[in-house]
């Protein structure tokens, strides 16, 4: 009886499957896009989205080409799915150069040189570091649309003043400030380590300053092993500060605290800690979301990441988003030309939402002192290093974050964690 039933089941399975397959074999022509409208996909929402819409509105007014802006917070899965289904947007603004490189090698994005954006045109507007980020195997696939600095340490000027502390310019000073705060019964640091990208940013800043830009580039390009001594040495430096006695709630408390909650621990209405390491965008979030009573310069301020090895100076670790095209037509060409112009950049920065990597955008266009400070830092950086975890392919950046959480949690297991991460990285870089 049982056997008969399973036979029946498989027979029916085949019948239903064939029905499904024949049905799909009769397929119609692919969908045509409306002429005069392009879809732009990115991950910005909220005020960032509003700022970007201002930029695209000006474009529509000028050219008559409509822009459909779509948001996907989980940007990578959505772009992957739509590409696989043959339904990509015309333009995407991609937050990770690593993803852009993947897409370029798979032939999904267009070479910009063939779309009227010559290398001369791009070079006139962007510094070599930015041009390089959009370049894969010698061809340019993306233009930088926005930038931010991640080499910033935020602190409470009021507390520093009352304890006669000064912003640190060297690692030794930073350690001294940390110890002094602790000695005065204050918790020096907060850390939103539950969002593991805050830890990758920490590591990148330390690594750039202890191993130097050259090793940094090689490490995040898969050309240097994560088991290299320079990695564990940078991690040990980092753990001089990220340890139980200096963190609000200890290491485990930090690992259970999100990025924004961490800002709240320093700049909220009942502060518990006094320093916070994260990008330039912390200022906006702290002022708008966490505590509207904050006063820039009085109760919130920032200083640039201190030097560690004097030889490597102040390399800037930062992030940014690159615009890339999936379709080549006249509308897309004029959009790309527009988005890389100083005109678009000026409108965009005036909203206070971004820092423009376009060097033709004037400093006066920025609306407040916190953004201006960040823009100046980005513009004046001698060495610009892109956020390393965003350079890693696919989910490897997230894996790196989880690994750093594990190392923070039990530093003793550093060696084995690094070697198993290296095994993963090797696989990912070889395209496995």
């Amino acid at each position, binding site marked *: 009886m049982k056997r008969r039933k399973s036979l029946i089941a498989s027979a029916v399975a085949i019948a239903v499957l064939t029905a499904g397959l024949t049905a799909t074999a009769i397929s119609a022509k692919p969908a045509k896009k409306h002429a005069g409208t392009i879809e732009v996909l990115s991950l910005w929402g909220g005020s960032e989205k509003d700022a970007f819409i201002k930029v695209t509105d000006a474009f529509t007014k000028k050219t008559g080409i409509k822009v459909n802006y779509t948001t996907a917070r989980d940007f990578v899965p959505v772009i992957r799915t739509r590409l696989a289904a043959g339904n990509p947007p015309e333009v995407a603004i991609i937050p990770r150069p690593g993803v852009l490189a993947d897409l370029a090698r798979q032939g999904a994005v267009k070479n910009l040189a063939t779309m009227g954006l010559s290398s001369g045109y791009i070079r006139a507007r962007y510094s070599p570091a930015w041009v390089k980020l959009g370049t894969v195997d010698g061809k340019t696939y993306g233009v930088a649309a926005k930038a931010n600095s991640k080499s910033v340490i935020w602190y409470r000027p009021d507390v520093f003043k009352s304890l006669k502390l000064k912003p640190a310019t060297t690692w030794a000073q930073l350690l001294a400030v940390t110890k002094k705060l602790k000695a005065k019964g204050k918790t020096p640091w907060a850390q939103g380590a539950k969002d593991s990208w805050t830890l990758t940013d920490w590591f990148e800043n330390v690594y750039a300053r202890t191993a130097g830009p050259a090793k940094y580039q090689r490490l995040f390009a898969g050309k240097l092993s994560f088991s290299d001594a320079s990695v564990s040495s940078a991690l040990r430096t980092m753990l001089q500060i990220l340890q139980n006695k200096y963190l609000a709630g200890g290491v485990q*408390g930090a*690992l259970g605290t999100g990025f924004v909650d961490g800002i709240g621990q320093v700049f909220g209405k009942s502060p518990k800690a006094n320093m916070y390491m994260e990008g330039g965008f912390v200022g906006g979030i702290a002022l708008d979301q966490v505590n509207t009573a904050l006063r820039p310069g009085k109760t919130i301020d920032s200083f640039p990441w201190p030097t560690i090895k004097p030889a490597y100076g102040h390399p800037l670790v930062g992030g940014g988003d690159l615009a890339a095209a999936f379709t080549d037509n006249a509308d897309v060409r004029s959009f790309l030309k527009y988005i890389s112009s100083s005109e678009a950049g000026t409108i965009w920065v005036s909203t206070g939402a971004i820092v423009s990597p376009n060097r033709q955008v004037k400093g006066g266009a920025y609306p407040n002192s916190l953004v201006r400070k960040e823009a100046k830092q980005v513009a004046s950086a001698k060495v610009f290093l892109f956020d390393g975890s965003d350079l890693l392919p696919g989910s490897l950046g997230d894996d790196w974050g989880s690994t750093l959480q594990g190392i923070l949690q039990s530093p003793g297991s550093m060696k084995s964690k690094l070697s198993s991460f290296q095994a993963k990285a090797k696989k990912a870089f070889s395209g496995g």
Partner: protein
Amino acid sequence: MSTDPLSASLPRAPAHAPRLSGGKGRETLQGLIFAGPALAVLGLFLVYPAVQTIRLAFYRGFGFKFEHYLGLQNFKDLLTSDPDFLDRSHFPPTGAVVNNLKWLVIYTLACLVFGLALAVLTVRVRYEPVVKSMIFVPMAISATAVGVIWLFVYSPDPSIGLINAVIHGIGGSPISFLGRPDTLNYAIIFAYVWASTGFAMVVLSAALKGIPTEIIEAARVDGAGEWAIFRRVMLPMLSLPISVVTVWLLINVIKVFDIIYVMAGPGGGINGGARVIAFNMYTEALVNGRWGYGASIATFMFIVLLPFMILSVTRFRSSRVIA
């Protein structure tokens, strides 16, 4: 087979129902007319994607393309050289499969036990509908919102996290539920139990009410205590609704993803310790673009769950036999 004292009086299954005039051919036609539309929709929008997925599991499949046939290589890699999926290099083994087993045992049992206890207890009070509604409401909240709610509840900061506020209030030191590898999984599992128990309770409570009073009365007359009545009379009669709930919970367990993604982050928490099978499938296919490998994870899920599904269906079929 039939130990159920009621079986004689219950409706029989229609398996041997008298045939309509016109015989077998006509029945086939009628069956097709009734089931046809559903089968067509299923065939096109569910079976077709499922078949594509299973096929893709045998390819390298970047960009969901059927290029470079690999045979069983994906499955081999999955089971032998993917520490995120299953790491047997140390004892006890770790990885998504092990976590899913934790989910399977704890989530399923907790939902069943809480659901059953609440069902049995609420029957005895007049404000039953109020209590039941209160327990059920979380079902209406999306998985993402459930994750966000519990991020707050678990916050290690006693001025924000409810649980730690209580711990702090009674003089304890705060516990960072999501910041410790040993509590991370259980904290997420409990949040999902919170959201799902209402369903188990409602189904089991309905089933409880279906038990005829005479049986329970008869047991009482025989001098059985409340616990004995529960164990000897109610529990056996609830075995079938319990299996309905179990199937539903099982599917929840194998598909659970959103809440882990929200609460542990895209890397799956400290050392990726909160990852489950569906999480790995998502990461490999949609983030890394390794659709073929992701498809092999999906196919693995399918193969593992299939025996349970068959068991549950034959179980339901046996219910007809009892009836």
